């Protein structure tokens, strides 16, 4: 799977970008040239040798804040995706096996979560549990989880009726055995696609939440927070939102690209795609190189 994704140009681009961003998240706080929280008199400065991306309204170095904020932004969206995966995928798989009551119950919960107005719910929960990045991400993860629930349930249903699962049942296999041995490998590719997508969505959500002041609290920097504060000073420094906005955009785009690549290489579609490339290449070759024994008729 990994090798096939890397064989696609789009897959390679996506993985490279995501690796760079992961590196940024890992090393960002150390790379920051200045203290991201240190204010100075030099507010709203333009780009200069000392401040590559200028300073914000409190005179803080924007580059340092971007780098320092990358960790929490990336971790936040990862957290969203993983929470959604655990909360969604496991009940999704089990809903096929644990009987009708469980199935009905989880299906209704999934429906309810989809129906809830997202931001209002997030604000309500934060009002209840207190404001913090972990709470915010947990709530977001739970709200996104129906996607995983549905994806994994659909994939499991497709496997559950297959003869090899019945053969295992006839040999006396337990549900745990069947899920571990047969179901898991079939559910993984669609879940991987959903995961890549959710990380992308997670970025937007974390950013928009911090933009609204939910989750991460100032002065702690995040990409979304930077975007928010920069927007307030648009008239003074119209170019300021570009850097954080670009970072968010590129990351989301890379995640979607990866999701597409995974979808393209898994299953029938993947094989058809590979064949198509090959046939086209062969035809081009045949057209380019004049055949010495061309007169086959």
């Amino acid at each position, binding site marked *: 799977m990994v090798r096939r994704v890397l064989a696609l140009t789009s897959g390679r681009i996506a993985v490279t970008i995501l690796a760079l961003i992961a590196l940024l998240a890992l090393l960002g706080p150390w790379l920051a040239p200045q203290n991201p929280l240190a204010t100075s008199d030099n507010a709203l400065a333009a780009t200069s040798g000392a401040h590559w991306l200028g300073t914000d309204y409190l005179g803080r170095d924007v580059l340092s804040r971007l780098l320092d904020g990358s960790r929490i932004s990336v971790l936040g969206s990862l957290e969203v995706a993983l929470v959604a995966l655990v909360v969604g995928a496991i009940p999704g798989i089990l809903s096929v096996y644990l009987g009708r009551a469980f199935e009905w119950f989880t299906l209704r919960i999934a429906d309810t979560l989809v129906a809830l107005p997202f931001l209002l719910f997030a604000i309500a929960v934060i009002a209840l549990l207190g404001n913090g990045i972990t709470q915010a991400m947990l709530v977001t993860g739970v709200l996104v989880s129906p996607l995983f629930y549905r994806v994994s349930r659909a994939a499991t249903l497709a496997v559950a009726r297959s*003869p*090899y699962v*019945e053969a*295992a049942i*006839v*040999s*006396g296999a337990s549900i745990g*055995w069947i899920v571990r*041995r047969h179901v898991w490998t079939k559910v993984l590719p669609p879940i991987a696609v959903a995961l890549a997508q959710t990380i992308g969505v997670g970025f937007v959500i974390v950013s928009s939440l911090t933009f609204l002041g939910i989750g991460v609290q100032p002065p702690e920097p995040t990409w979304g927070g930077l975007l928010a504060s920069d927007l307030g000073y648009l008239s003074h420094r119209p170019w300021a939102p570009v850097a954080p906005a670009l970072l968010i955009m590129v990351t989301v785009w890379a995640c979607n690209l990866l999701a597409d690549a995974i979808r393209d290489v898994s299953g029938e579609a993947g094989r058809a795609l590979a064949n198509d490339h090959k046939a086209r290449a062969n035809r081009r070759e045949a057209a380019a190189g004049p055949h010495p024994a061309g007169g086959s008729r």
Partner: protein
Amino acid sequence: MTTTAPEAKDAVREDATGSVLEVAGLDVHYGRGRKRRRALHGVTLDIAPGEAVGVIGETGSGKSTLARTVLGLVPASAGSIRIAGEDVSGYGPRQWRDLRRRGVIQYVFQDPLRSLDPDLTIEESLTEPLLIQGVRRQEAALRARSFLDRVHLTTDLLDRLPGELSGGQRQRVSVARALVTEPRLVILDEPVSALDSANRVQVLEILKELRTSGVALVFISHDLGSVAGTADRITVLYQGELVETGTARAVVNQPQHPYTRLLLGSAPTLRGKPADRAEREALRALLSA
């Protein structure tokens, strides 16, 4: 054989002279309320150890339902089923699982393309029933190898995936998989109908060889020809009821029921005159009346 359930094994041995499978007055219904449909009615079947019985039936005759009911995958609405002397009629999921784990009864599916997990190697598929029983991995692998030989496959296939095998090879793997627990009864649901003639002959040869090994076979098929050469007895299932039972030769040569006669008249033969169209028409009219 099974280390997990020695007492059960003894019980089986005591009963070695009795029937492997005893089905009496079996009724099966699908659906509920107004949509309730009868799939089987009053089916009675008795299979002795080592016997090969062919169940002939076409689409909708209930033949797969019969197999699935005997295996506990479909509940019966009336009648009794005894497997190796054990009355399984009222069994719950747990009792069924314990019974299946002993590996007394196994099943071979029709579709060799889908009856093996495409993501597992042949070795993993073959050892699965043993691993479920709790046999250690190395021991299971060793036994799987010996059964591969029984179906005329070489051990170099062991680490291949099902997708890399031909349909006939896959079906032979399925047969080997059903045999690894040394069952007393194997139910084969259309084991050769998805195969082309060369592979069909090969699989049928293997099944014939199996008959000398003492395992009882229930051979479900719509094709009289492939069953007639492999089974001792044939029973014909039509619209959920057994309409005719007898030795293979008797059923083929002196068919009693009009449906059996139509079946025989419909099978395309090589040198026989193109069987009489009018006679088939008459039988069809008789059956639909």
